[in-house]
């Protein structure tokens, strides 16, 4: 005679319910391991999804060109022909540029000159947002009109330092020895930090008022998606044919990719820790089951007297172990999703937990329950009925 599946589950469930605290604690061990693993996978998946979203918004085809550390070290600049040369390269779609000035910016005109707040004033071209993908949170970027006037757009961090929160003709900062109106504030940008700590004025007004020589210090170039790899190695020589080694070419999206690589290493480490926790949880289940078999000798004897075969006793204890770790596994998956959701929400990412991680978590608990329940179940089945009944 075989027991039906519902009878097997019912008997196993009853065995667990009769010692709830111990069952809870050993299920907790499993749950912690599974939660750690699901959480790690979920957080890494959410972060990858966020990265992909940002990469597709930002584009992987932006290249930046800047002068390298020259021997003298001061005020390295690119030749003023560089912008035109790069724009003329096949495969380059659009180009924009920034030029560093020596001007300083202050909140008002009676602050001591050394209180610059680490803000750099740049001459900026009006097409910068279209190329570098910058956005304003308030006001507007420079246009053909404002580029000729004492108007400034502040990077997010720069606005913060200057305590500027609003834009408009009445919102003034002391820049290069005269008042400039703040017409825009940029959104934070953690890929191009120059933009965060910059104050941007028009190319013409910088030349007229701030003694700017018109030579760029950073060139932003959008290449065609399929031309990025062919354009990138040629940029140095194009920007500065006389001294190509003096040019730094970089691809900001590489920073993102590199960040993902480091988070992968960390993720693998945490995954390993989760596996160890799971192993410890499995030992806990085995321990609980061994004790349970010893404590329940008379129950085993009685069941044998009622006609249970060795196989049925084995099945009973094995399914108890499986059910126990499945409880832990289900709890762990839920907790792992919770951890991911909290973490992702705090980072304002979307929560992503891959289905395979959940299914894998549950599958792992079934394997662990099976392994840790196997020996105790075998012991229970081997017990002779009289021996089991003799102990009370």
């Amino acid at each position, binding site marked *: *005679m075989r027991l039906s599946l519902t009878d097997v589950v019912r008997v196993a469930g*009853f065995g667990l319910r009769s010692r709830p605290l111990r069952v809870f604690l050993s299920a907790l061990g499993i749950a912690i391991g599974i939660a750690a693993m699901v959480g790690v996978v979920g957080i890494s998946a959410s972060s990858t999804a966020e990265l992909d979203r940002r990469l597709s918004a930002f584009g992987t085809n932006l290249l930046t060109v800047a002068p390298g550390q020259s021997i003298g070290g001061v005020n390295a600049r690119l030749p003023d022909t560089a912008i035109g040369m790069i724009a003329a390269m096949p495969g380059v779609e659009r180009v924009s540029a920034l030029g560093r000035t020596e001007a300083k910016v202050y909140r008002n005109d009676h602050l001591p000159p050394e209180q610059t707040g680490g803000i750099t004033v740049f001459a900026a071209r009006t097409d910068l947002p279209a190329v570098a993908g910058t956005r304003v949170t308030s006001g507007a970027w420079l246009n053909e009109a404002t580029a000729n006037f004492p108007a400034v757009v502040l990077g997010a961090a720069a606005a913060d330092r200057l305590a500027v929160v609003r834009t408009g003709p009445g919102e003034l900062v002391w820049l290069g020895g005269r008042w400039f109106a703040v017409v825009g504030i940029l959104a934070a940008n953690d890929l191009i930090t120059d933009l965060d700590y910059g104050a941007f004025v028009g190319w013409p007004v910088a030349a007229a008022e701030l003694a700017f020589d018109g030579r760029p210090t950073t060139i932003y170039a959008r290449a065609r998606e399929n031309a990025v790899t062919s354009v990138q190695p040629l940029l140095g020589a194009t920007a500065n044919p006389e001294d190509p080694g003096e040019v730094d070419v970089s691809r900001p999206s590489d920073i993102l990719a590199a960040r993902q690589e480091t988070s992968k290493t960390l993720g693998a480490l945490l995954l390993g820790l989760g596996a160890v926790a799971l192993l410890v949880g499995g030992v806990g289940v085995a321990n609980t089951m061994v004790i349970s078999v010893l404590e329940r000798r008379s129950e085993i004897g009685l069941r044998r*007297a*009622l006609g249970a075969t060795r196989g049925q006793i084995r099945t009973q204890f094995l399914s108890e172990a499986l059910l126990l770790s499945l409880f832990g596994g289900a709890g762990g998956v839920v907790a792992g999703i919770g951890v991911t959701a909290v973490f992702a929400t705090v980072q304002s990412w979307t929560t992503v937990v891959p289905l395979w991680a959940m299914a894998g978590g549950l599958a792992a608990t079934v394997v662990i329950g099976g392994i840790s329940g196997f020996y105790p179940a075998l012991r229970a089945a081997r017990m*002779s*009925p009289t021996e089991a009944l003799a102990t*009370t």
Partner: protein
Amino acid sequence: MTEPIVEMAGVSKRYGDVTALHDVDLRIERGELLAVVGPSGSGKSTLLNIMGTLDRPTSGTLRLDGFDVGALTDRAVSALRARTIGFVFQQFHLARGVPALDVVADGLLYSGQPRGYRRSAAEAALRRVGLGHRLTHRSHQLSGGEQQRVAIARAVLGDPPLLMADEPTGNLDSQAGGVVMDLLRELCAGGTTVVIITHDRDIAAALPRAVRIRDGRI
């Protein structure tokens, strides 16, 4: 159906150098009410365990309901046990915290019957032992006598032809013991073969047949 329900021939059981049973021959006819009586340590429980297929003899043969038990596998013996024998133990062996109805219903758990049938049979069995008003009581809410009657209801579920009781009144006062004995007599009158193990000569004397055992010999 003239074949005896139990037939033991030359059965011995040794535990190491202790011989608990010595060359026992015993025949029990269907419908008998029989006592196995002897002092403590004389081998009564050993005899019951072997007769009830819970243990295997060191030597000798046992035929139960026509089957040569020694030739059967664990599976077949378990099935035979489920179908043929009901056990009642001195220590009741009721699961704690489980309603009487479910305790009794487990008597048929290994018989292949569906759960609904098991539960309705359990209810009938509890009524038969006079506990129709205790269906949902849990074991610790019942008196000793009631607990033993629950155990009897579980043992007779599915009408096994043979009921074995090892000191069924050993943990009960004389009044509750009397109720249990009356119940066992009643079951025998209904056609069940009942074997009662006891060290109490008075109980044995009140039954139609008494087998005396001493130092493993009858």
